[in-house]
């Protein structure tokens, strides 16, 4: 009988797990909607900022901003590693962290900054316990983005790091999220050529007081906003990954429950058959006597 009781217990515990994963799936679905909404609301700012930057890059003659020049040679690369605060989202965080580790293979002296608790833990594991860190989900995210931008800009300006590279998540679709590494500072010279190619037939734009001045104001905002947008995207991608992970977990629990139920029914039927056999053979033995 022990086997039957064991099976029944396992099924009950699986049902509980399934209820939890199902609830988490629904929570993730609701949060994804909110994260997507926040992403959509940041869109108009992003588009206009891009347009302004293009106009500026086309029109500046000489660029005297530190962000447009290579950082101090010999200084380590600065890497902002951005993940979610929590897990239970499949390999989501692990994939981003692996991307950062790969980056470190080619930049062994890279100094890390972390956004997200999982990123903070990973940076500690990489042997840099005292690096600056921020949580991803703290509100308002724009304030966090400003703090991160201020810190990396300060380090870049005083030559502690030679560039600012961001490793975060990119949401390709609800089903696919990918880690994404890109260098934010210094701004690639190719961006200027690209801007020239893309600039519309706007003709002469007047700048007050000068394109160089406006650009020097715009570049720090651009960094701030890029970090903010990456935080929104990483957040949305995390919930998408969690939704998929919890959906799979719920399905798997269901399959396991079905399988165990068949086992349990077999075991119960076997027990009944055995009992009947015992009764029948007992009765026959009595009748013979």
């Amino acid at each position, binding site marked *: 009988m022990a086997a039957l009781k064991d099976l029944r217990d396992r099924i009950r515990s699986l049902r509980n797990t399934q209820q939890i994963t199902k609830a988490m799936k629904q929570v993730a679905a609701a949060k994804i909607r909110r994260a997507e909404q926040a992403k959509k*609301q940041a869109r108009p700012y992003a588009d206009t900022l891009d347009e302004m930057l293009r106009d*500026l890059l086309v029109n500046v003659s000489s660029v005297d901003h530190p962000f447009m020049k290579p950082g101090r040679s010999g200084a380590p690369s600065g890497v902002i590693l951005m993940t979610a605060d929590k897990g239970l989202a499949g390999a989501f965080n692990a994939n981003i962290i692996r991307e950062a580790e790969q980056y470190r293979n080619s930049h062994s002296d890279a100094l890390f900054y972390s956004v997200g608790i999982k990123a903070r833990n990973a940076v500690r594991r990489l042997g840099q316990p005292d690096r600056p860190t921020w949580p991803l989900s703290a509100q*308002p995210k724009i304030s966090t983005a400003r703090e991160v931008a201020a810190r990396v800009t300060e380090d870049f300006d005083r030559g502690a790091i030679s560039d600012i590279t961001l490793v975060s998540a990119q949401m390709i679709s609800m089903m696919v999220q990918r880690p994404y590494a890109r260098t934010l500072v210094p701004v690639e010279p190719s961006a200027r050529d690209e801007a020239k190619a893309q600039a519309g037939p706007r003709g*002469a734009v007047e700048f007050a007081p000068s394109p160089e001045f406006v650009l020097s104001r715009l570049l720090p*905002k651009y960094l701030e906003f890029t970090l903010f947008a990456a935080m929104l995207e990483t957040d949305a991608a995390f919930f998408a990954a969690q939704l998929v992970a919890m959906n799979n977990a719920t399905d798997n629990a269901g399959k396991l429950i079905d399988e165990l139920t068949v086992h349990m029914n077999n075991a119960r039927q076997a027990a009944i058959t055995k009992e009947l056999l015992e009764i029948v053979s007992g009765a026959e033995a009595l009748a013979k006597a």
Partner: protein
Amino acid sequence: MAGTVPFKLITPTEVVFEGDAELVIAVGTEGEEGILPHHAPFLTALRPGVLRANKSGGNRLELATGEGFMQALPDRVTVLVDRALRFEDVNPAEARNELSAALERQKSAADPAAFAREQAIIDFANAKLRLTHH
């Protein structure tokens, strides 16, 4: 008036205003800039200050805005700012405290960057107070 121009005021988290304006006045780094419809392409950086717009129909829009940029094109005017507060979002007592604290810190500012940072806080606090004075 020479008609109106589509005007948008955008912060990183939302579009604060979208509609037609007869005139948009913002505080540029070189002083106030007034933009009328059919303006030649123009781009400037903004200091924290009070942004005003005459909406079509005679209503006026007044907001305390943070640092940002204003782009004027013949067919539209777009303002990007860090923050934009309406009159009803301003807490005057809080703004006064921010102002006096920033003035105090500015006296002991160590370098031009710190001085400028405090100046931005002072300008924004002043803008908030100016909104409430009407």
